[in-house]
């Protein structure tokens, strides 16, 4: 009796245990597989549109460009060379004025609840996408405001004479002049290809404005749901023309509050977090990884070369020599920025590691000042920008540090700051002697640094606030734009940088980094070399025993510790 009782109890216990474990196990399995096939990304803000043509805001292109769309060509690899994407190949005529693209024939558009494509991508879609920008009479040009900021800034409509459809899968751009940054512009996140068929459908339904709100593209993900200020949900595009993405669902958890993002990251509520704070805490955790990439920007200290004493090259050199750049980087950027040798960051293909750098030498600075005739020193003002930017998180503090540095060589500094728009307006009128500002590139082509920041033409239009104009420098830029030979261009830009470092219209201080944190179970590259992000290669692996920290996407990015 006792034995059977025991048996009964034992069996009872076993069944209960089995039941519980099966329920738990089943639950666990399902949940983990759902979350294993999905990524939650804590993003910093709501995109204003899903069409990157319309906006240069990083939040917008992060949420749209690489996820929803493709461009004709892309930048690939560590060398950032141009590679085929929707165009399988392209051909540039010898004079550089005719560029022919041969399109892939197997590219499908998204099929969603609001649109079902009946045909694959062809030349009409490319025509539609670019004519929307170029042709002011195009049916969709004025939809969503008609502002194509990136294309307007590179004067796209002045460059392109027309676009011709040769046949269904061949398209030719005819340019008014040769411009070697043209291909670079087409490879940016902004030059995406929309669906012409979708445009037609919207026209017949008289719902044209939906083209940028309910997007249709060819990218690896398609939009499922968007709630402003709350979330963006993407599903995988199963008919993607390349191998389809590894995750099935991508959710952007919009969390503008940075401590909120940190909490969610630590509590494992998001897998990847944009712009994290508390870098040391994240780096210390074994289950999290911090990555960074030097983005294409530069924070600098510029001189008004039209005003005494900065019209004298020696004074500019002296001041530059007297500034302890490394101390600025350690204090202002907390060591999280790359020290700038010249205006071009090292992620740019035209970066030349041989570029000379002036360095920190207060003794030489003092003697240069004596040569220039300012042995007793002088009084100057520094205009510090009032807002926080990635390239300069605190200009006023930086101005104070420079003030202390310059005191050592007998130069007295007054720090001046205005409200942002007043600051920019007065700066463009040349009221300043020296100023702290920065520049963020719109695309990877190096010309985007050289021309707008320091050329004679941009001096007249006011984006060159040093008012420096050097014929030799401008000549080099022109030569660089008319050749497509990369190594020749690199040579011209290296010469240009040598001129800058000799003439010192400005002292480049730092190239700040873009940061991102993720759980160690999230594998694959996310940060792209040129600012944007892409979740195409991302997947999750539950291999916890593999405690090796995922190394950063490429050589240039480093894990901070």
């Amino acid at each position, binding site marked *: 009796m006792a034995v059977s009782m025991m048996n009964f109890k034992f069996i009872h216990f076993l069944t209960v245990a089995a039941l519980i474990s099966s329920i738990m196990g089943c639950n666990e399995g*399902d949940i983990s597989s*759902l979350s294993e096939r999905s990524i939650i990304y804590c993003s910093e803000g709501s995109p204003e549109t899903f069409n990157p043509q319309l906006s240069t805001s990083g939040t917008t292109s992060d949420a749209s460009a690489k996820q929803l769309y493709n461009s004709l060509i892309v930048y690939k690899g560590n060398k950032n060379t141009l590679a085929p994407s929707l165009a399988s190949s392209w051909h540039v005529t010898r004079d550089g004025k005719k560029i022919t693209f041969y399109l892939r024939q197997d590219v499908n558009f998204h099929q969603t609840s609001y649109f079902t494509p009946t045909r694959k991508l062809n030349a009409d879609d490319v025509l539609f996408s670019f004519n929307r920008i170029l042709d002011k009479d195009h049916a969709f040009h004025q939809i969503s405001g008609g502002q194509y900021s990136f294309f307007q800034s590179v004067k796209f409509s002045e460059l392109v004479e027309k676009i011709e459809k040769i046949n269904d899968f061949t398209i030719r751009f005819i340019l008014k002049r040769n411009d070697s940054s043209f291909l670079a512009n087409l490879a940016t996140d902004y030059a995406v290809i929309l669906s012409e068929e979708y445009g037609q459908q919207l026209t017949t339904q008289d719902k044209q404005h939906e083209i940028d709100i309910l997007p249709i593209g060819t990218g690896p993900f398609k939009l499922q749901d968007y709630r*402003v200020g709350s979330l963006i949900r993407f599903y995988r595009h199963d008919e993607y023309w390349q191998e389809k993405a590894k995750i099935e669902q991508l959710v952007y958890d919009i969390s503008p509050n940075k401590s909120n993002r940190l909490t*969610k990251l630590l*509590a*494992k*509520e998001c897998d990847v977090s944009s712009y994290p704070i508390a870098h040391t805490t994240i780096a210390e955790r074994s289950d999290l990884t911090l990555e960074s990439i030097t983005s294409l920007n530069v924070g600098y200290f510029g001189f008004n070369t039209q005003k005494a004493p900065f019209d004298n090259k020696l004074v500019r050199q002296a001041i530059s020599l007297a500034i302890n750049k490394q101390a600025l980087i350690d204090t202002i950027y907390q060591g999280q920025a790359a020290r700038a040798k010249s205006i071009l960051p090292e992620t740019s293909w035209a970066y030349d590691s041989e570029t000379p750098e002036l360095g920190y030498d207060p003794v030489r600075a003092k003697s240069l000042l004596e040569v220039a005739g300012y042995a007793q020193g002088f009084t100057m003002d520094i205009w510090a920008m009032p807002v926080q930017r990635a390239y300069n998180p605190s200009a006023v503090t930086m101005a104070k540090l420079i003030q202390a540095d310059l005191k050592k060589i007998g130069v007295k500094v007054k720090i001046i700051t205005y409200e942002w728009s007043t600051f920019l307006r007065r700066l463009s009128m040349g009221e300043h002697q020296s100023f702290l500002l920065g520049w963020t590139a719109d695309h990877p082509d190096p010309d985007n640094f050289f021309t707008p920041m320091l050329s004679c033409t941009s001096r007249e239009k006011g984006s060159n606030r040093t008012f420096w104009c050097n014929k030799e420098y401008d000549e080099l830029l022109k030569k660089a734009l008319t050749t497509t030979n990369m190594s020749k261009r690199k040579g011209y830009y290296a010469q240009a940088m040598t001129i800058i470092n000799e003439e010192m219209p400005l002292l480049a201080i730092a190239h700040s980094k873009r940061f991102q944190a993720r759980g160690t179970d999230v594998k694959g590259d996310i940060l792209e070399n040129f600012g944007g992000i892409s979740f195409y290669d991302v997947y999750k692996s539950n291999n916890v025993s593999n405690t090796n920290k995922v190394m950063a996407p490429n050589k240039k990015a480093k894990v901070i510790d």
Partner: protein
Amino acid sequence: MLTFTLRRLALFLFTMMVLTLLSFSLSFLFPGDTVINHSGQINATATDLAKLNEAYQMDKNIFRQYSAYLQHIINGDFGQSMASQSPISNEIIELLPATIELSLVALLIAMLVGIPLGFIAAINHNKTSDNAILSFAMIGYSIPVFWLGLLAILLFSIGLGWLPSSGKISLLFEIEFVTGIQFIDILLSDSPYKWQAFNNASAHIILPACVIALAPATIFIRLSRAAMIEVLATSYIRAARAKGLNFRQIIFRHAIRNALIQIIRHVGLQFANLVTLAMVTEVIFSWPGIGRWLIESISQRDYTAIQSGLLALSCFIFIVHILTDFIYAALNPLARGNNHGS
């Protein structure tokens, strides 16, 4: 009972009048154009503005303006949010259920924990357990809710990793909006991950609900303790004891029932307190409810949302108040004779 109902209704109407008057006058007190504050249409063109002035009768005297405003409110037109440019009534319908859900769960926790503890304290009057429970109540009542919320996140979400820290449910689950009450929506949905979603939603609600529940629970402890002590001192309990009923029978059959009636009167009052706590807690736990929305509207200076949100929230609290009054009256016939509002 009829007089009782009518009196409550009259009270409701008059309070609503005062509330709408208040929110109406806010439009004048806030900076900017009054009609834009009423309607929230910040991008209105000249013709739109003319139409709005017509609709709100801005050219007439102030009484006509008020009645026009009232007309809009009664028709469910609260204007549109200045920040998101979507109708406020839609936003309220989406967000209010989340707050109700959170508050109800918190209320339930507060009652389930607070009332029994109070009874235990009363039964062991002036003994160690009584003192212990009372000091717990004192400490619990003194802790500020935002601090407690942050501590809870630090301990249970970040430190131990047991419970999530933000939102109603993991964003991976797609639950269609039907009633706005998450648990009901999950049960109605046909998602293959229904039960996982349910578990996930339960895990999400535990922390914020417990944080909100702490202060009301301590009040319930003190209320139920006082009520129980009072009941235990009454003559009918003494009579029951004299009749030879045992301790169990006295407590469960007589004392608890009579003490509970006293407590139910206060549930309505506590609910208002609870919603206030919920507003702060929603911000900390990123709970997508009306409290967080209202606080965000304040920081964005979304005047239309502030005035309409306040109106909707106070209206809701007032309705809850009246409902508990009715429940109390239904349970306690003595109260029905009490014609005046309490």
